[in-house]
């Protein structure tokens, strides 16, 4: 995974709450067996609407999504994270994230930065006044700022995920470093626990 320290990019206002993963990418787009190419399904239903924010040229190259609360609810599909990344998003800002989406983001390297609902509103106001404006997300200092200093605030992300993203670390590699602990645990599991196949 690539290291993430700070990112500056065009902010995209997505003024909806409860953007579920079926909105981010509908199920019919989930049939690929790769991790790439999912940008074609990103917000597929809304992309037909000429007024949808990503159809505005100013935002087409956006990389910082500024979304309403309860972003990423619903299905566990990591394809939702991949679709955002495949499109070019590096960061999603929201007042509340669904747990699985937040977890998937951390694993795949998308920064899910939680900010106060008022900060989202200020960013939306700022982007309304300055379409195409950039937003800087600094993971080291956990800050979200606009270059002109109109918005300067902090965001929340759990310390462990932040550390992993800053260092670009692979979870599985870290866990396999503790494989003796896993083996010791397995040795103590009760015999009556179910198995799916017997030797």
């Amino acid at each position, binding site marked *: 995974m690539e290291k993430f320290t700070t990112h500056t990019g065009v902010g995209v206002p997505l003024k909806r709450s409860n953007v579920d993963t079926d909105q981010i990418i509908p199920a019919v787009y989930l049939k690929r067996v790769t991790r790439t190419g999912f940008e074609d399904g990103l917000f597929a239903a809304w992309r037909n609407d000429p007024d949808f924010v990503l159809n505005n040229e100013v935002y087409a190259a956006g990389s910082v999504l500024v979304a309403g609360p309860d972003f990423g609810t619903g299905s566990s599909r990591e394809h939702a994270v991949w679709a955002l990344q495949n499109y070019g998003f590096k960061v999603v800002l929201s007042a509340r994230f669904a747990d699985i989406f937040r977890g998937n983001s951390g694993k795949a390297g998308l920064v899910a930065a939680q900010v106060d609902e008022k900060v989202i509103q200020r960013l939306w106001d700022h982007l309304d006044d300055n379409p195409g404006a950039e937003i800087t997300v600094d993971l080291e200092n956990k800050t979200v700022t606009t270059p002109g200093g109109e918005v300067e605030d902090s965001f929340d992300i759990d310390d462990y995920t932040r550390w992993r993203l800053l260092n670009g670390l692979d979870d599985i590699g*870290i866990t396999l470093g503790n494989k003796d602990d896993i083996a010791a645990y397995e040795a103590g599991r009760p015999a009556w626990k179910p198995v799916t196949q017997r030797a």
Partner: protein
Amino acid sequence: MMGCKLYSGGMAKTLSEKVWDEHVVRSTAGEPDLLYIDLHLIHEVTSPQAFDGLRLAGRPVRRPDLTLATEDHNVPTLDWDKPIADPVSKTQVDTLRKNAAEFGVRLHPLGDIEQGIVHVVGPQLGLTQPGMTIVCGDSHTSTHGAFGAIAFGIGTSEVEHVLATQTLMQAKPKTMAVTINGSLPAGVTAKDMVLTLITHTGTGGGQGYIVEYRGQAIEELSMEGRMTVCNMSIEWGAKAGLIAPDQTTFDYIEGKPEAPKGADWDAAVAHWKTLVTDEDAVFDKEIVLDASTMTPFVTWGTNPGQGVALGGVVPTPSDFDDEQDRIAAENALTYMGLTAGTPMRDVKVDTVFVGSCTNGRIEDLRLAADILKGHKVDPNTRLLVVPGSVRVRMQAEAEGLHEIFLAAGAEWRGAGCSMCLGMNPDQLTPGERSASTSNRNFEGRQGKGGRTHLVSIPVAAATAVRGTLSSPADLVSVEV
């Protein structure tokens, strides 16, 4: 370092804390716990990239004997004995078959007697047992919590992590109790109960919590009903939902193919009986509801928290205090093509879907057949009955339920997720309206432009007959 320790007293704990603590492989300050996973369920949609990752890193599946795969999400429910017509779906299913063979994973493919929705298959095989940790790349894994297991959905990166290590790194969630006192009135089901709860909490109300459902109304539910409640834990944002195992649980498991036998059974039950929340344990949050006041409940909007009593009306957006809720309601009414103030019973429905991991078990089909017996599906409505597994389908046919469905004019299909998420050919067309026993009414969930009302089995069956949202009480009785 900690060995595997079964819970044996000590500080007062909640049920979920006991199960969690029994599975901690490694715990370090400032890091998530490393949690052992007892059972990893797999399907075709969220696993191909995970197996690819293993292949790239040259890693094996650590415990194929704790892993089970089935084909469910995109399989057809018609012509399932023929090659899958959609080439992209076929590639995904073929990829699962190839991966299962290469990595030694047990797979129940289309056509196999144990094939079905992963959350129906686990319990019916007896693989889902109290006190386990169960994960799957599917958010409705919470279903298995009905047995007193910690069960939750994971993304594909985590699927790869579990395949490689049989563990997951997880921060310990907070605990919540949802106590549902009293008894459900006749004709009101577990589905109405959980839909009522979600409208009460909103879709984000459970975020960060493992929820224990308890109280008289929960204890009185069958295992199928408990699975329906736990299944929808994710719809109000909970990490997982679980119910303390009791005699109902033990009776359900006993004799199932993968259940413990003989002395193992006795040892297992002795342990399972300790899996209750200690009397003086403290939850981080508590919600209390009264089942005796609950009524048939349906959704009007585009998330599962936008619900109302079947006897109620489509709400007026300006009635919502919160601005985001008001905007969401306006958007939902536009999308759903509904007018504020319309009685829910006046809403005409094109398609009724009976099935899914929420309501696709044998008890659900029995209840639907019981209501449909002697009735005909409204000529302007179609009814799809999709059993949750091949075993459910066979059991229903052994009991003659399929004859009732077919006589009523319903379509009797093969097993799978089907129209719950419209990944296979079972989809709504733009503007088409469904009453669905599934779990999500998101925009486009059942097909692009489709409009979904989440309902219970009795409401689904009665709606199919009347063509408008209805309960069995609205049906003119027939001599049968």
